[in-house]
């Protein structure tokens, strides 16, 4: 009897399967941060972002770039380092309930990845189109590039890397090797960032105008396909979760 009571108390006190607070706070972090970024673009894009030789460009845009570089490298190092450092070394011996809880946490990360990919690949990339079709570029570091290439892309790379690392260090499902489609879903979009090198080289070499369908941009397209790797992650997760739920009820 005493043991039963203790067990019930322990259940009541245990962490919820899905931490909704984390999910809401994480989502708000992306949405509010990017709303602020969009406000900043609206204010300082036109007033300080048209001429890269002007002093105000240095103040409002190049300093923004330097600060984001530092913050991104720090965030990636701290976040990925933390996830790796606190990895579960006995991951194959966790209880089914703990495994389910970790799947929920993993999906919290994946939802954040969805936000990050949306803002990077959709919102700020097409926005870059209208900016460059309107404003003639005189630098690689235009206001739209400082946000698109050097802010929103690193953010989805950091988030995607965190998803993958979390799965690899805490979930038994991913212990049999490296999940190929998961790697594609994370590494492919990551490769869009190095592809910026080709893009900028090409724009400075022969192509000042903005034609979005130009072959110069096809590297982005190829690596964008990799986002479809999320379907492999979904299939793996569905199988793992179904297996957990279909076991005999306690």
């Amino acid at each position, binding site marked *: 009897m005493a043991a039963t009571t203790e067990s019930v108390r322990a259940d009541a006190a245990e962490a919820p399967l*899905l931490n909704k607070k984390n999910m809401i706070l994480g989502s708000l972090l992306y949405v509010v941060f990017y709303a602020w970024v*969009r406000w900043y*673009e609206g204010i300082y894009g036109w007033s300080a972002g048209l001429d890269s030789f002007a002093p105000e460009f240095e103040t409002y845009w190049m300093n923004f770039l330097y600060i984001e570089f530092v913050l991104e490298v720090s965030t990636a190092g701290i976040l990925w380092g933390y996830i790796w450092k606190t990895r579960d070394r006995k991951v194959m011996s966790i*209880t089914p*309930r703990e495994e*389910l809880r970790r799947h929920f946490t993993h999906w919290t990360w994946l*939802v954040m*990845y*969805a936000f990050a*990919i*949306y803002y*990077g*690949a*959709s*919102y700020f*990339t*097409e*926005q870059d*189109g*209208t*900016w460059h*079709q*309107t404003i*003639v*570029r005189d630098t690689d570091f235009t206001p739209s590039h400082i946000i698109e290439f050097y802010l929103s892309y690193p953010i989805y790379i950091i988030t995607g890397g965190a998803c993958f690392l979390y799965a690899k260090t805490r979930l038994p499902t991913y*212990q*049999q*090797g490296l*999940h*190929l*489609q998961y790697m594609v*879903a994370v590494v492919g*979009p990551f490769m*869009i960032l190095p592809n910026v090198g080709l893009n900028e080289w090409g724009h400075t070499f022969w192509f000042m*105008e*903005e*034609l*979005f*369908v130009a072959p110069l941009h*096809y590297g982005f*397209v190829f690596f*964008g*396909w990799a*986002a*479809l790797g*999320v*379907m*492999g992650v*979904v*299939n793996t997760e*569905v*199988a793992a*979760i179904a297996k*957990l*739920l*279909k*076991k*005999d*009820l*306690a």
Partner: protein
Amino acid sequence: MSASQSAVRSRAEAVKVSRTFDWLILFTLFFVVLGGYHIHYMLTGGDWDFWTDWKDRRLWVTVAPIVSITFPAAVQAVLWWRYRLPFGAVVCILGLLLGEWVNRYMNFWGWTYFPVNFCFPSNLMPGAIVLDVVLMLTNSMTITAVIGGMAYGLLFYPGNWPVIAPLHVPVEYNGMMMTLADLQGYHYVRTGTPEYIRMVEKGTLRTFGKDVAPVSAFFSAFVSILIYFLWHFFGKWFGGTSFTQSS
């Protein structure tokens, strides 16, 4: 704990957990596919999709269906063939349209001040519905590719006709005849995109006069069939669950 023990404590909790995962999966799939699809589409057919003066009877009609049938085919290959969910194409197009509409309003209009009736996205929904319905009714990838893919290409122009027709009426401006869409382009100058890179109404087929759009649509339908086949297999691969060998 037994290895066969469940992670949940009641059937009710199992159902709740399952439903919660459904929502998390749908949200994630929707927005990640949206991101990949949107960057693909904007960089392979985007210019024709951005501006009404690019929405011509030749290249817009040809290019847009060919490059946009890709992700629907791939997502159908997983959602239908694994889960019997008959909305792979529609969910892709809904995602793409959401991404585009948010952008056209917030950025094309909100940041660079082009009116929305100059930069609204193409309507891809009729073809997507037909693609899903054909797959659902036939349960055949081959028939979906041939019939659905062809319908996807052929329906694009009629599906956009009610929106674009008013902008294709001829106007005379400073002694030149052009369409109302052309006139929008002249008035809303895109400094970074000079007129000489606008690809519209090219080629000799224009001598066929009124036949340009249907012929372009038919060619687009033919290529859409081939692209559907290709991307179905891409989708199958992307939906795989293989692991590299652990060292």
